[in-house]
């Protein structure tokens, strides 16, 4: 699988070239948020605001009022935890086109609780006017910019940095409020987002080998959550649904799916994988994914529980499942 290094850095520079109204805001994490190339390329459109996120958010709102499109970059926690009041009052309520790029989602950092954005979707989903997107691979990191740009109001992007795998082909960009149908099948529906999709792909490949039919949907738009394919997948799942998210199970993808099941009376069992109303701590990504049950084996166990079966697979066998770039089956199979 292709690993793309710092996908946001050069992509943003190219994308913003002919968009003079696009400005970038940084709160002292310029290199960490991969906007250092932008700073070099367009110094007049780059605004260093210091470690002062509250002012940065309201200030960006002021520039948005005057026709600029501010892309606010910092670690996700410092956006929605430090400046929530400013997001609501200065940006979301007046429906201004400020676009937030939040890095280090969930347990992706050894920085511990203060750096781990584990409830950002839950918090921001409750705010009227907010659109919430999440990137799951390099293709989505690259193509989310067009989506963000075409949305009139505020957007929060939960995004990735550093060495990011390319799961989806370049020619299949991020589509607003559309799930990627990664496999089809009527036994189990699996919904994943962000880094959990890569983890789940190892499982779905294995399950197919075992003759278990899995409808696997990758979710990149958390709000709105209206793709009809979501309800269809839930309705078709004979044994139930599993959600897997790098986030608390309260208020994120799992809750979103639970609301659909309840409101539409779909009557399906649901297992939500994610942080179970706990704080994580600082450690490596594989360690934390295993500890907090965001790993492939836990997903296998969840499928076993729903189907009341026992699959004989070891961690090693799961880890050895080779991943190919995944073409969305939305065109090939579902349609």
């Amino acid at each position, binding site marked *: 699988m292709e690993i793309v290094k710092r996908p946001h850095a050069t992509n943003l520079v190219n994308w913003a070239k002919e968009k003079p109204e696009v400005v970038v805001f940084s709160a002292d994490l310029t290199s960490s948020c991969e906007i250092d190339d932008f700073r070099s390329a367009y110094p*007049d459109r780059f*605004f260093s*605001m*210091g470690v*002062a996120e*509250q*002012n940065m*958010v*309201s*200030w*960006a*709102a*002021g*520039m*948005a*009022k*005057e*026709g*600029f499109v501010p892309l606010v970059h910092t670690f996700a926690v410092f956006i929605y935890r430090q400046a929530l*009041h*400013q997001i609501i*009052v*200065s940006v979301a*309520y*007046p*429906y201004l086109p400020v676009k937030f790029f939040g890095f280090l989602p969930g347990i992706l950092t050894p920085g511990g609780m203060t750096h781990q954005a584990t409830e950002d979707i839950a918090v921001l989903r409750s705010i*009227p*006017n907010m659109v919430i997107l999440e990137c799951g691979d390099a293709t989505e990191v690259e193509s989310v910019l067009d989506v963000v740009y075409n949305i*009139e*109001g505020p957007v929060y992007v939960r995004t990735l940095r550093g060495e990011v795998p390319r799961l989806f082909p370049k020619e299949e960009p991020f589509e607003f409020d559309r799930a990627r149908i990664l496999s089809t099948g009527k036994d189990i529906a699996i919904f994943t987002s962000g880094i959990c999709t890569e983890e789940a792909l190892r499982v779905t490949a294995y399950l197919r080998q075992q003759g278990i039919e899995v409808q696997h949907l990758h979710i990149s738009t958390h709000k709105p959550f209206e793709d009809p394919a979501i309800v269809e997948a839930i309705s078709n799942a004979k044994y139930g649904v599993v959600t897997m998210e790098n986030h608390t199970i309260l208020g994120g993808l799992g809750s979103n799916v639970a609301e659909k099941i309840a409101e539409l009376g779909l009557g399906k069992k649901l297992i939500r994988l994610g942080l179970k109303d706990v704080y994580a701590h600082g450690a490596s990504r594989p360690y934390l994914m295993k500890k907090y049950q965001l790993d492939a084996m836990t997903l296998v166990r969840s499928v076993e529980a729903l189907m009341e079966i026992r699959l004989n697979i070891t961690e090693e066998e799961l880890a050895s499942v080779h991943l190919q770039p995944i073409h969305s089956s939305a065109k090939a199979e579902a349609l």
Partner: protein
Amino acid sequence: MNSPDVTETMDWRVRTSQVANGIRRRVFEHVLENNGGYLSQACSAAEIFATLYTRVMNLAESNAPLIPIDIPPQYAGKKVVSFRGAEYNGPISPEYDRFFLSPGHYALVLYATLVEVGRLSEEGLKKFNKDGSTVEMIGADHSPGFEVMSGSLAQALSVAGGVALARKIKKESGKVWVLLSDGEMQEGQTWEAIAALSFYKIDNLAVYVDVNGHQCDGKMNRVMEVEPLKARLESFGAIAEAVDGHDVEALARPAQYLSQGKPVFVLAYTNPCQGIPLLEARKPFLHYVRFKSQEERLSYEHYFREVFAAKTNERV
């Protein structure tokens, strides 16, 4: 309102002071009718508003209705706000100034100002705090005169900073004026904003601070000291001038410090009981006045009739 020909020949200071007295009178009248309101804010800030609106700010004529529209029934509090309260300060245009009222609870004082300068009708003011009205108690961005909803203190200065920077980039000649309350100097975001204003050399923006020395819990130096404001602001790289906040000439003067590479702060030292000495008895709790007894209310009514009604008659 005076007819234009009279205004033109009149010394601006007389006219501005008349507007200030009119602001106090209108807010006082409202408080009497409604048995409560933000009265001390009118006492302290009347001259600041009057000076800004009659002498300092370069605003276009208002195209907004003299009687504000009501909140449309279909308004769901989502997406596009259908009506902008800033329209009362004239249409947005590169050459005209912009005004940001940061303490949203000064709304009544702003509405009274708009009536005094002919941008809002008396009938419009009567919609204050009525169900379905845009003339809200704490102004929102659909309320007359409001650019932004500023009920949460300290955010408007940062927004205004962004607007001012954007206007500099776009080479617009219009200025940005902000009215801040001294209580907001306790907010961390205010100092974040001042640092950024200074760092980006925002010199097309000036801030009037109503330093009345009082807040909800009482006297500010007993709640959380913010002085020395002038020294603090100057150490942040701003131009700061302390003035008598009831002297309209002194209030108008610091505007000349704009365009010198630094943000300008006018520290308007004011008396929250100015013009209504009866309020002295309520010190230090002046944030929101609600009459405690019929006797107290009658004393205020008496004072209003003796002083304000008489003055109004003189003017008419």
